[in-house]
């Protein structure tokens, strides 16, 4: 393992490519995180305070509450898939470029 001094970390931080990676990643991750958290907490909030809405039967005996809970699964999977695709097509490419220039990646 190379010594940490071998890599100029400050130069990486100053590199415009890293700056842009940082900005785009931060915006994407925290945005997605906020949306996911809000969507998740809609379930306990709805179950507690909007029971009349949750009780409406929409598909035979299947009510809004059940469909909403199932939609949470779908949303979690979509978030995971979307992030994984974005990261591998976009963030990983820039990160690899920076890593190749500043430090041998293993």
């Amino acid at each position: 393992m190379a010594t940490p001094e071998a890599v100029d970390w400050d130069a990486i931080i100053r590199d415009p490519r890293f700056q842009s990676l940082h900005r785009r990643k931060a915006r994407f991750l925290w945005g997605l995180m906020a949306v996911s958290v809000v969507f998740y907490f809609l379930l306990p909030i709805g179950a507690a305070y909007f029971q009349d809405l949750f009780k409406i039967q929409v598909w035979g005996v299947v009510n809004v509450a059940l469909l909403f809970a199932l939609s949470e699964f779908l949303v979690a999977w979509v978030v995971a898939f979307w992030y994984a695709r974005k990261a591998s097509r976009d963030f990983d490419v820039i990160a690899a470029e920076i890593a190749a220039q500043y430090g041998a990646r293993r």
Partner: protein
Amino acid sequence: MNPAQAAAAPDYQWLTFTVFAVIIAITMWVTYLAAKRVRSAADFYTAGGGISGFQNGWAIAGDYLSAASFLGIAGLISLYGYDGFMYSVGFLAAYITVLLLIAEPCRNIGRYTLADILAYRNDPRRTRVFGALSTITVSTFYLTAQMVGGGVLVKTLIGINYETSVICVGILMLAYVIFGGMVATTWVQIIKAVLLVCASIVMVALVWSPYGFSLPAFLKVVVGDPNVQARVATLLGDPAKNMTAAELGQRFLEPGLYFKAPIDQISLGMGLVFGTAGLPHILMRFFTVRTAQQARGSVVWAMAIIGGFYVLTLFLGFGAAHSVGPAAIAAVDAGGNMAAPLLAQYLGGGPASFWGNLMLAFVSAVAFATIVAVVAGLVLASASAMAHDLYVGVVRAGRETTPRAQVTAARVATLIVGAMSIGIGIAAKGQNVAVLVGLAFAVAASANFPCVLLTLYWKRCNTTGIVAGMLIGTITAVGLTLVSPNVTYPLAVKAAAHKVLDAEPAKRSAATAALASEDAAVAAKAKKDLAGLDKAVAKATADIAKWGEERTSFVGLEQPLFSLKNPGIISIPLGFLAVLLGSLLTRDPRAEATWNEVYARQNTGIQVTKAAAH
């Protein structure tokens, strides 16, 4: 009623033992193969970083789908309907936090433990001590719940006594971890997750196929079931008197039968969603892969597997409610933990049939493997905190520790933690430990999560902040739980008992009068009511005798100081606040100087500790 007889028919005990033996033999073979590959500390703690993203995804699922979630959630759904399913949602949603914010940076920054991540920027000695203590605290809460749950489960399933069950779980787990380290633990978790998912898919196929795999058709039968309707009527009490049978059945699919206080439910949700990202045994799994890409891939796979499994719990739970009946499930285990095994027995053909007992034995063996695999992961996390953080990182700080000595230290620590877990498991016999899982999540969410998150994403975060966050987060989460309604309050218990006794004469005379009724149904109901009344009176008398002159809970309170069962809504913000204030009130040049390195490294993955190629 003897639960052991209720679960497995005595004639088929041999079958249960055979299936258990086969599954244990497979995991032992894997451990034997793994033991040959454990040479260094990296092999022991992280399987040398040689696990692929797909494998790690299955292992995370195996680590996470504990008996509490497999048996517990299926049970909650079978007894309380919709509210049980809300747990499933929370457990999956938790992985979004892990995926987006935690997994990849942790892979790029850490080596073996949670404290590694904290020690990178901060004073290594102090953060290692607090990180290790918090790891051991969280893991011990979780471990105790698993050991007690496991002991009860094995006792119920195969009829051996509680102490023997706990010792069996402990020894088996120690064999995996001591000889095979993370390699064996990983493979045991993978095997268990595959078995669990397969068993669940088979059961759901059997439960659902009679309804042509139509969701409304299946649920229509569930809400139309008289047993389910009777259960809802019991849960609702007086308000149920004005409801029709159809309304009662439909109520099973609506929220509010289990969670009574809305804020409590939101507080629980916070604990789940942020706590998972602070569970040391889950974080540790990300050090077993080589790159951030694989860490990401493993979470995506884990979310697919865990999510898919939790969707199945909907059918397992409702299926058990309809096929076995809530009353029958609660009769074997009041918490509903036997719902899935009993459903398996029913689907195979019932308690008297060979296939019914084979299915029961298989699901029971999977549940047993589940407990052992989860316990193995927890013990490994605690042992690594003890050996790597406390011994190598603090006690022997600044001195060279040979790879051989490190592995020995890890094995000794495993033995200590394992022996402790067996001792705690036996000591906690008969205790209600469900609260401990919630507490583990609460401490993880209130102490570990703020510290890890802010150390990764906030430049000003420093040692004082970490120490303050760990202390405040843990103390408030544990403290609020101690003064919450989770603890037994003798005055309330005795008041409830006296209420039962006071109401008894009126109820008894009413029931006795009804007993003489011409209507056979009314008379039968009266007879049942009388039996129930006798039971309630006996319990009330026993409660009064048990608590005697006792007035306060074991922390000295007459009533709860804090009205919520889940402390997260208070303790998580306090944990964050403590890290923020601690960091802002002090300056730590080293923490700020290393920020560029930490931030650049976590985003680029430069110089991740070289993984051993196997």
